[in-house]
């Protein structure tokens, strides 16, 4: 434990925050650690040599970060966050593939399969269901993104939203578009394969909506608040 008596003022800490923003460190969760590092090093320098001003100490400390400055740290932090979310998302998907969510998923598949088989399968049916799921997904995502206004402030949130955005574009925009395009060109023939494929696709859509826009986000803010207690006053 390194005990330094000298303490920077609130104004000086704010100056460090502005200094980091000026050097393209815009995320609060990355700033937090760098502010403490800069402040600790500056306090020590100013205590060792009382003739050194705050600005001089800051310049000396910043030089230690090398020619790349903070950019390498931010870049590597982004990579680490992506890695974290890949693991965390995969864990959540696997966790959801257990009862009772697994049973619900199977029931949803049976529901889609049954409705298309017994109520009649025309190309209009998958197109209508795709349209409804897309509309539902847009409403859910809109609500979610409006609530998560701080996503640009925290790298932790932004990294997750990147993955959630990719899923949204692939499953709720691109694939329904493909179904609409096929439906416009030719009549889809009801075979066990087409009915199974469309039912599986709709089931996967519902499953992903649940995991990406309900299950993970419900714990997301809790995780962030427990890591960054000051956030609770901002929401």
């Amino acid at each position, binding site marked *: *434990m*390194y005990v330094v008596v000298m*303490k*920077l*003022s*609130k104004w000086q*800490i704010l100056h460090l925050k502005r200094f980091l923003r000026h050097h393209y460190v815009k995320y609060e969760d990355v700033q*937090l*650690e*760098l*502010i*403490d*590092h800069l*402040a*600790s*090093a500056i306090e020590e320098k100013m205590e060792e040599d009382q003739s050194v001003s705050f600005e001089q100490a800051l310049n000396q400390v910043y030089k*230690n*970060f*090398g020619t*790349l400055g903070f950019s*390498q*740290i931010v870049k*590597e*932090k982004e*990579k*680490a*966050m992506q*890695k*974290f979310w890949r*693991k965390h998302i995969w864990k959540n998907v696997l966790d959801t593939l257990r009862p009772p969510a697994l049973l619900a998923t199977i029931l949803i598949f049976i529901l889609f399969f049954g409705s298309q088989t017994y109520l009649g399968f025309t190309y209009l049916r998958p197109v209508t269901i795709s349209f409804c799921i897309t509309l539902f997904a847009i409403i859910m995502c809109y609500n979610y993104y409006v609530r998560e206004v701080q996503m640009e402030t925290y790298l932790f949130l932004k990294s997750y939203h990147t993955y959630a955005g990719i899923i949204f574009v692939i499953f709720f925009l691109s694939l329904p578009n493909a179904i609409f395009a096929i439906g416009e060109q030719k009549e889809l023939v009801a075979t066990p394969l087409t009915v199974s494929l469309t039912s599986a696709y709709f089931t996967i859509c519902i499953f992903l909506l649940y995991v990406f826009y309900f299950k993970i986000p419900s714990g997301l803010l809790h995780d962030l608040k427990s*890591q*960054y*207690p*000051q956030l609770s006053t901002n929401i």
Partner: protein
Amino acid sequence: MNSKIYKGSLEPIILKLLTEHQAMYGYEITKAIKNLTKNEIQVKEGSLYPLLHRMEADGVIESYIKNMGNRNRKYYKITEEGQHQAASILEEMNQYLRIMQSFFGPTHNLSLDQ
């Protein structure tokens, strides 16, 4: 780090430090390494933080925030998974040092006639 030889040793050093201490913050780690090696190893901030973030993403270490009055501080501590990894890395490191001793140690003998 001030030499290529030390590259790759930073992770075992951090694991060892975090095994010995309850929790440490970034600046404290750089100071500890500098003091313990009598300024022989100076950790660059550009190497330390990316490594800490990667280790955190891998689940080897975890962090928590503590309010220090004028600012917040991020502390790192070793996880259970990290403790297992630390034990195996430290064993590997000891083995590496033993092997290197046979080449560079005070009683080394590089004669091929044995």
